């Protein structure tokens, strides 16, 4: 009975209304791209005229769009792998480290999260020009891996947070070598954190546009850059189909992650 507080402390209706409006502001705009993607017009006009799959057809058959998509996938996979590798090792290294130096290192590793992307992009562009990395796969991969590291670090660190160090002692007291302990005890327990971090690093790279705009070459550009051009230069409504595909893909990845995570949780308990 005591948890029943609606009489004690009612929520005014106008507050609920505001929250609903804010909620719509969060989600509605993105939904506009979906009807657009079925338009048969060759402009950005809304509401879309007619219904056709022409834009999807173009997206999946036009080599320019397909190449951009392929480049993005390759870059994102490689960047996410690199970020996951170095991010996970760093999280393991920082786990249990205390003191000022450890704190500085953690801040340093996180710094790309708070540095404006444009500042990073400009700095990287100027240096990469000299190192001849602009417009190359290694250039994209290294830059995207660097900004993916914080995501891996955060999610692996939080997985390690729930990790009982006594388990390690238990394992070594049972005669396991440190490597074997890592593979059989630590790894399974933090796997979910690693997978989460890897997915975030992938999505971050796949969606990254500011740095990519500076690193692009006519011969090598990623999907977000292609989309950017389709708005600024080409006025190509294929971007609507591309947007819908990307939104659906990213949402599915997040949902799968969520689903796998919660299923594991229920199976474990």
């Amino acid at each position: 009975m005591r948890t029943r507080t609606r009489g004690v402390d009612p929520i005014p209706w106008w507050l609920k209304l505001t929250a609903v409006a804010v909620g719509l502001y969060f989600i509605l705009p993105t939904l506009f791209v979906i009807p657009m993607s079925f338009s048969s017009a060759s402009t950005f006009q809304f509401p879309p005229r007619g219904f056709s799959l022409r834009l999807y057809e173009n997206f999946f058959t036009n080599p320019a769009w397909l190449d951009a998509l392929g480049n993005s996938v390759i870059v994102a996979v490689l960047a996410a792998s690199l970020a996951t590798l170095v991010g996970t090792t760093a999280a393991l290294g920082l786990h249990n480290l205390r003191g000022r130096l450890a704190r500085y290192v953690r801040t340093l590793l996180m710094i790309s999260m708070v540095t404006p992307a444009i500042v990073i992009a400009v700095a990287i562009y100027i240096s990469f020009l000299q190192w001849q990395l602009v417009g190359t796969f290694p250039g994209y991969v290294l830059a995207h891996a660097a900004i993916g590291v914080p995501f891996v670090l955060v999610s692996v660190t939080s997985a390690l947070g729930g990790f009982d160090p006594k388990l390690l002692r238990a394992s070594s007291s049972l005669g396991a070598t440190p490597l074997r302990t890592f593979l059989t005890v630590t790894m399974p327990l933090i796997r979910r954190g690693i997978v989460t971090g890897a997915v975030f690093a992938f999505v971050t790279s796949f969606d990254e546009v500011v740095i990519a705009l500076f690193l692009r070459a006519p011969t090598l550009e990623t999907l977000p850059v292609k989309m950017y051009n389709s708005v600024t230069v080409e006025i190509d409504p294929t971007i609507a189909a591309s947007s819908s595909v990307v939104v659906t893909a990213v949402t599915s990845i997040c949902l799968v992650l969520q689903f796998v995570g919660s299923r594991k949780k229920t199976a474990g308990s």
Partner: protein
Amino acid sequence: MPTSGTQIRLTGVTKDYGLAVPAVDDVSLTIEPGEFMTLLGPSGSGKTTTLNLIAGFETLTSGTIEFNSADVSSLPPHKRNLGMLFQNYALFPHMTVAQNVAYPLRERKLPKAEIARKVAEVLELVQLTGRDGHHPSQLSGGQQQRVALARAIVFDPNALLLDEPLGALDRNLRGALQAEIHRIHQEVGTTFVFVTHDQEEAMNLSDRIALFNNGRIEQVGTPEALYQRPETLFTARFLGDSNVFEPSKTADGTIVWENCVWATEPGTVSDLTKAGTRAALVVRPEDVHIAADGDVAPTGANAVAATIRDIEYMGAYRTAVLSLGQSGTVGRARLGALESGLTVGQSVTAWWHVGRQRLVAV
């Protein structure tokens, strides 16, 4: 300027959330000026909801609430002029002790000098002089609750409402704060309405207790009256231990339980046990005596055959756990100094004086 206390009268007070049973169901209760009234009951019995209704945090479904015969049913909480003490203190963490205590006075726009004077006065009353500059987080739990008490009484409220204020404290501190609350009630003479589920606390502090069950008041009375003369089985069981017999027949002056025929006396029958209602006979363990080794119950006493199941050592005294009658109903008797030679498994006679039993409504 000491207040002489406010009378609080609830008439037909009901709070219905639209569930199967109303949270508070047709409660009528008059709390006299300066009285220490405890609303006692298990959780979910409606006591806290009743307190929230008095405070104005909940709105009435029906009924009226009056302060000194003035209807306050539709007044918002901030206009009812009530002090409130919460279980988790509810001190404002961003204010000092003095600012917390001064809060209700500032709301009432008192002059600065008077605020300072009153704050100093009340801090002295709760023995926290010199702590005015501290923040709540720098104080112990007991001290925090005393600040909350000071804040709740500093503005001479119509009444002080206490919502399980001792629940969060450890056992020793509870005792000390009980004494403190008792002393302050004596000194300020304001009406206190105290909510608790702890019968001991209620017995120690209250002038009167209103015992709540399922949204209704089961019985109102002094602690002694509730303990000695329960009207219902619920009251008898909630306050203290009882041996309970459910008689097969109650007629004028006699009760039949299994093969025993017992007498009743006027004054030991609850007003609620009218003809036709189900009734139970209750006897407190301290009123049950044991006759063993050929002794018999005194004539005129009610008696029943019993077997000793166990003897529990309680420190100051011992208790015999009994199986009573043919059915082996579990009962208890507190053993006196003379009843010392009993052994487990022994067949005895349990008896009590007719005047110590109580026939109550079920």
